[in-house]
């Protein structure tokens, strides 16, 4: 009787230790997963940032090329330079995304206007810039997609059980807004050469 009680206690202690170890293991796994997924979001933001910066750097070249041909389109050119300045001043993600969207639409206007200037359209420099900007625009779209995918995985992780218990009160991250038309109807995307 006594021995069976002793062995029972031993069993309980043993099981408790195993249980605690398993719990600690699970906690470490989820903690690390959450940190890794969070880091992935910041990394995917830097992917967007790189492309935004490359585009911002190309804008002065574009203005320089376009200026000579589009003498009467001062407004459109001004819009581009202004949104570029805002882009460069923007500090946080929200402001950068907003300025980035503005620059996108300002550039779209420029390329739409350029359709009326055959000499400009034939300019090799302009063609190369247009191609490059279209390629960057495409990469920005994909970088945003990956950013949002990363946010989705992170948010799923910290809002579903059991990840929720290990999130330590972390808040869900916000998605980047993509203009609905941009991805849904690819045929009207950024103009191509």
């Amino acid at each position, binding site marked *: 009787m006594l021995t069976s009680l002793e062995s029972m206690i031993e069993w309980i202690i043993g099981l408790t230790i195993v249980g605690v170890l398993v719990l600690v293991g699970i906690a470490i796994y989820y903690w690390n997963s959450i940190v890794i997924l969070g880091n992935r979001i910041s990394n995917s933001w830097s992917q967007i940032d790189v*492309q935004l910066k490359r585009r911002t750097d190309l804008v002065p070249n574009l203005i320089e090329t376009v200026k000579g041909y589009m003498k009467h389109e001062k407004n459109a050119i001004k819009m581009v330079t202004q949104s570029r300045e805002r882009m460069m001043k923007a500090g946080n993600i929200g402001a950068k995304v907003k300025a980035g969207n503005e620059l996108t639409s300002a550039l779209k206007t420029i390329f739409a206007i350029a359709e009326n200037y055959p000499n400009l359209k034939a300019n090799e420099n302009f063609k190369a810039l247009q*191609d490059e900007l279209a*390629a960057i625009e*495409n*990469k920005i779209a*994909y970088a945003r997609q990956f950013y949002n*995918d*990363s946010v989705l995985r992170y948010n799923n992780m910290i809002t579903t059980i059991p990840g929720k218990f290990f999130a330590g009160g972390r808040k869900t991250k916000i998605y980047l807004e993509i203009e609905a038309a941009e*991805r849904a109807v*690819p045929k009207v995307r950024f103009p191509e050469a």
Partner: protein
Amino acid sequence: MKHEKVDVYGQIANNKRLSFLLAILIVLGIGALGYVFGYTYHPDLAFTIFIIAIIFAMLSSIIGYYYSDKIVLKAVNAKKAHPVNHKKALDLLEGLCIGAGMKMPRLYIIKSPEINAFATGRDYEHAVIGLTEGAVEKLDKLELEGVLAHELSHIKNYDIRFMTLVSVLVGTAVIISELLLRNFFWRGRSSSDRDSKGAGIIVIIGLILAIITPILMKLIQLAISRKREYLADASAALITRYPDGLADALEMIKTENKGRMKISKATMHLFISNPLKKLGADSLFSTHPPINKRIRKLRSM
């Protein structure tokens, strides 16, 4: 929109399960063959030959595994993509890699007017995507993105590694059954001195197994290969979020390609569409699923 996404994820999970099941079937087949082999052969010598066969199969596949990218690039005569001449394709590939969150593989170009593409390399670091000149010239941006995303998916899903493993297993099975058949032949001549009424049945069962198993395994390997194509199509749609791009590209391949690429037959399973055959005649022995079925699946995503 939400419904579509769930479908794609579901298809990926489904394909993964099926591939796993098929791989287990192959392993079980090898086990059965090995058992029969050990039973019919002289026990002492049998084991040694058995081990040698397996080591041989492993060694050849390990070499294939580590040099797969170089061997394939030589076999299809592909050249590294030019940073200026092939800028469009390189830019699209870079964008897709950003979207999929993976390292950009090297891009190679094959001199051929046919529309085709392949992926190879054992892991992300050694991954290579090959495109024909025909694909670069004839496909528009969205179609080319679809094709590149399909190849990128093969890399992302570790298909090349998986298929190498499967071909090792199949290769081993073929070698074992070959030995088994030789053994029967040899024994049949010298067994007159032995009373072999009970052994006769086992010999017949073994003979049937030895003949059928390699064929069966080859069929399983091809079935896995076709499953992997569907999986890569689904993953590609997930990366581009535009399944019609790849569907349009397959449509182009169907009408434009004549199946006359000058490449080694051993590499044909790597391509997005069979490079050596005019499409249409699809059977159990195809490395690729019927193109019309692939297009239908993509259109319904």
